[in-house]
């Protein structure tokens, strides 16, 4: 897609005279962001190198881990698989969500946010367009991490039912963390600095969601904290599907799905409301493009 075509999508003025659909605009955002990303080829290589080194690091860690505690928690005896799934999915959602906030800060910093929003492209389309590319890239690196993992010993089941169940859990994982991203973006719009929500979620989930260790290792006084975060249920379900051939019909996985669905149903309206309030407030103050 050529640059003038991209601009036309964002302007909503097509050669044919019809208005561009939301899908076409989101596509234009994705192509724009991909082209910007591809410009920094050294960065691309470093991203790939980073994925490789994190997987290989846990390969070495797995060699000094005693698998008994892992087995007692119901995740088999393979720590490499446990850790790679945990870190890869945690990184996936948080790199996707945090880069969404970062891109909004970048657009504010560069002064391009007001330019886009003063066109016929609305904020919802803008937000969606910014988010989709991040999740595509996140998915790419998630798959790369799993692929590198498989080549060095990560064992993932090939059972179709389990893979489809893991895919469903991943969709719920994305949906639940988009809500976190929306909350983070609304705060960024208002306070113009940092990314407190995404940041808090990141370190709290690392600690309490069982990314690197099973939750039965947590002291009983704090083990309830993990229950607040959707990553806890997502990781539990995805691990059970990919390692011990569980499916959505397995009771523990079904329970995880219900909890994720409840989280999404309760928090989505709250996040959208918070975002609308922040957006309206910054527009009424005229500070949308300020940083």
């Amino acid at each position: 897609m050529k640059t003038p075509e991209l601009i036309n999508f964002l302007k909503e003025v097509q050669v044919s005279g019809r208005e561009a659909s939301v899908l076409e605009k989101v596509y234009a955002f994705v192509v724009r962001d991909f082209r910007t990303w591809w410009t920094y080829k050294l960065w691309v290589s470093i991203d790939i190198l980073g994925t490789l080194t994190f997987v290989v690091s846990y390969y070495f860690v797995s060699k000094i881990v005693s698998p008994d505690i892992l087995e007692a928690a119901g995740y088999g005896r393979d720590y490499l698989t446990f850790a790679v799934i945990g870190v890869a999915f945690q990184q996936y959602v948080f790199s996707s969500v945090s880069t969404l906030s970062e891109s909004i800060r970048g657009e504010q910093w560069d002064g391009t946010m007001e330019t886009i929003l003063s066109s016929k492209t609305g904020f919802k389309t803008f937000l969606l367009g910014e988010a989709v590319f991040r999740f595509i890239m996140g998915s790419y690196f998630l798959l790369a991490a799993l692929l590198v993992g498989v080549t060095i010993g990560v064992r993932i089941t090939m059972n179709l039912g389990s893979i489809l169940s893991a895919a469903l859990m991943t969709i719920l994982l994305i949906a639940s963390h988009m809500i976190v991203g929306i909350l983070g973006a609304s705060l960024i719009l208002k306070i113009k600095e940092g990314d407190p929500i995404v940041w808090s979620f990141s370190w709290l989930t690392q600690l309490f969601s069982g990314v690197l260790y099973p939750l039965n290792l947590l002291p009983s006084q704090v083990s309830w904290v993990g229950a607040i975060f959707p990553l806890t249920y997502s990781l539990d379900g995805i691990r059970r599907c990919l390692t011990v051939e569980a499916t959505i019909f397995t009771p523990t996985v079904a329970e995880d799905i219900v909890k994720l669905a409840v989280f999404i149903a309760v928090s989505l309206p709250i996040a959208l409301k918070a975002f609308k309030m922040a957006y309206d407030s910054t527009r009424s103050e005229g500070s949308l493009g300020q940083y």
Partner: protein
Amino acid sequence: MSDSALLAIFREEAPRLRSTFRQIYAVVWANLRIFFSYKFAVIMDLLSMVASIVMYFIMGLLVDPTQLSSRGYGNSYAAFVLVGVATQQYLWICLSRLSHMIQHDIRGGTLETVAVTQIRMGAYFLGQTIRGYLISLFSLLGMFAVGLFALGIPLVINIHTVGAAIVAFVLMIVANQAIGFATAGIVMVYKRGDPITFMLSGLNEFLSGVLYPLAMLQQFPIVYWMAQALPYTYALDAMRKALIGGATLLSPDVYFDVITLVIFSVVLLPIGLKVLQMGYNKIRENGTMATY
């Protein structure tokens, strides 16, 4: 120090040589004030730091202690990883702080402004570097405090072991700061150096054995050889041998690590400073101090 006092130092007409220390002090102080003005970010940094130590402490419960003790690092993974994770942030600061600051100042247009004042650029760069050290020292001490007093992680703390660890730590800073100076010189000219610092930092973390004993790399000779080419590998080994194994500067392993770090420092520091100076001279010649 008040805003007006800081501005007076930056503006002062005193001969540059005489006022170098005051200028460094002013740059450090000004930047610390900026850092602490982001109170929420400071709190989040502290919480992240505590969370990462607690996380590795819990992860340590999974580790088979014989796998560590057979490689000479005691039997506590929490102690092993505490030394690695706590010093890793310093490594990142040495490698990237100056180049990030320069990129930030170039983008914000403030590097040019500072360059035309009376302040010596050497003092400015050093002040920015020291600011990074001070903030990271805060994190480093905080991590050790949480590890020692809150989690009861077993470290051998006496004047000989701590002394040996500090010597290795200071030499680690010198050797890696030299690489950081060179990176900053390159960033000034080419404007985009983040990939270089990320790559260097990532490779150091991976190859130097932050999360696992380095001896495990021996089954991959090329990777092991690469690890041996990094100063952080020796510093981490010496600090662990001292703080976990109770070794001192006179212990053969630590002694060897320290000598190797001295050689790295002596070779790398002049090169790093030269590249930084060349980079600065180049952007002045080209008139690209505010271009990004």
